[in-house]
């Protein structure tokens, strides 16, 4: 009798569950069942994670500098659309961002460069590399659980003018952040990190840094099956950011 009443007047448990779910803040969009929601969350990390790109991003720090190198090829599928692409952006005088990933999503560099530039800060000095990395990570991690996350990997090269130390931050599209002495993104990681493991030292000077970069790009030319059209090289030092001419026309002896 009670059961009959319940069915006649109250919602069935399944309906109540769905109703409650719709009122949850995290379920405010069109997801109606828990299963759909779980698929949505898992899809953030699941299918695309192992996907690595042939776009090359490299970062090397030394005693008083951070070198950032980014491949010049703008690729779409198997086609190279442009061979002089610049995948870097100056966020402020001492912070440089390099990005690779979904073409439109690289707008994160624009969306974060404005708040981190000197002129829009209330404070008297531009934000340090640590502050910039923290801000960029928070933007990326907020986007990760939004309707449309950024699918870009980033390197942040900087120079902290207060402590007089170079800084390099590795950030992936899931907004995992790590402060590292040297870093790479995409397939370049597999070739370059082992070289840098062997040869890098925190006290190296700029010349040695460029030598290490040369070892890395030579290895990439030797091993990477695609032509990434060379790299643009920028350096962050106490004086600021400057582009370095990087002659890359010598053929590399194959393995």
């Amino acid at each position, binding site marked *: 009798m009670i059961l009959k009443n319940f069915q006649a007047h109250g919602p069935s448990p399944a309906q109540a569950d769905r109703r409650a779910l719709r009122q949850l803040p995290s379920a405010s969009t069109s997801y109606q069942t828990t299963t759909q929601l779980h698929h949505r*969350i898992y899809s953030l990390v699941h299918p695309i994670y192992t996907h690595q790109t042939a776009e090359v991003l490299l970062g090397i720090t030394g005693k008083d500098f951070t070198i950032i190198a980014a491949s010049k090829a703008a690729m779409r599928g198997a086609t190279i659309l442009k061979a002089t692409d610049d995948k870097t952006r100056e966020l402020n005088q001492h912070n440089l961002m390099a990005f690779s990933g979904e073409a439109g999503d690289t707008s994160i560099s624009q969306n974060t460069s404005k708040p981190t530039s000197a002129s829009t800060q209330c404070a008297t000095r531009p934000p340090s590399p640590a502050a910039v990395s923290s801000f960029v990570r928070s933007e990326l991690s907020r986007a990760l659980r939004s309707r449309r996350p950024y699918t870009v990997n980033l390197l942040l090269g900087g120079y902290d003018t207060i402590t007089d130390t170079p800084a390099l931050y590795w950030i992936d599209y899931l907004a995992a952040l*790590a*402060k590292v002495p040297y870093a790479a993104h995409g397939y370049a990681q597999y070739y370059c990190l082992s070289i840098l493991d062997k040869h890098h030292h925190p006290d190296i000077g700029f010349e040695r840094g460029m030598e290490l970069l040369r070892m890395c790009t030579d290895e990439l030319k030797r091993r990477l099956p695609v032509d990434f059209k060379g790299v643009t090289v920028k350096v962050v030092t106490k004086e600021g950011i400057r582009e370095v001419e990087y002659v890359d026309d010598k053929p590399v002896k194959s393995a």
Partner: protein
Amino acid sequence: MSSPFSINGGACVAMTGKDCVAIACDLRLGLQALTISNNFPKIFSYSPSVYLGLTGLATDVSTVADLFRYKVNMYRLREERQIAPRTFANLVSSSLYERRFGPYFVSPVVAGIDDGGKPFICGFDSIGCIDFAKDFIVSGTASDQLLGLGPEDLFETISQALLNAVDRDALSGWGAHVYIIEKDKVTKRLLKGRQD
């Protein structure tokens, strides 16, 4: 295929001793088999005797650690006192359950000493179910030998437990941090571990 919990790798363990607790984590940050960084600590302090270890998806480790820093700072301002381990454990539980249908992919461990000087440790699943424990959280099977260890013996035990575990796991390792928490003293040690 990899689950979000095992993309970046990591290990964390907490143990109780006599009037002391220990919590330890490894330092690796990886991308499946590739190691990105060997200095990515996973233990965070929220009061002189409350520590939180977070393993799982690295982005959520940072997000959750920052979220609790904010929440505990607000608690301290409102209450004008430090947060107790048990209170913090309930805060972790309710905060994780808030995200019931879109969870943070982390497995937290809390270790601390309460106001009475008694050890407190517990673990959680990613949606905040608390797992209270008398002896230890994460790693192996329960063992009575762990109970009644002094701080130095506890350090040796937790270090051996963690190092032996991470040496067997390709996704963890590359050094470790160990915290020994006593009533009025916290000792942090860096274990170098295997660097290969």
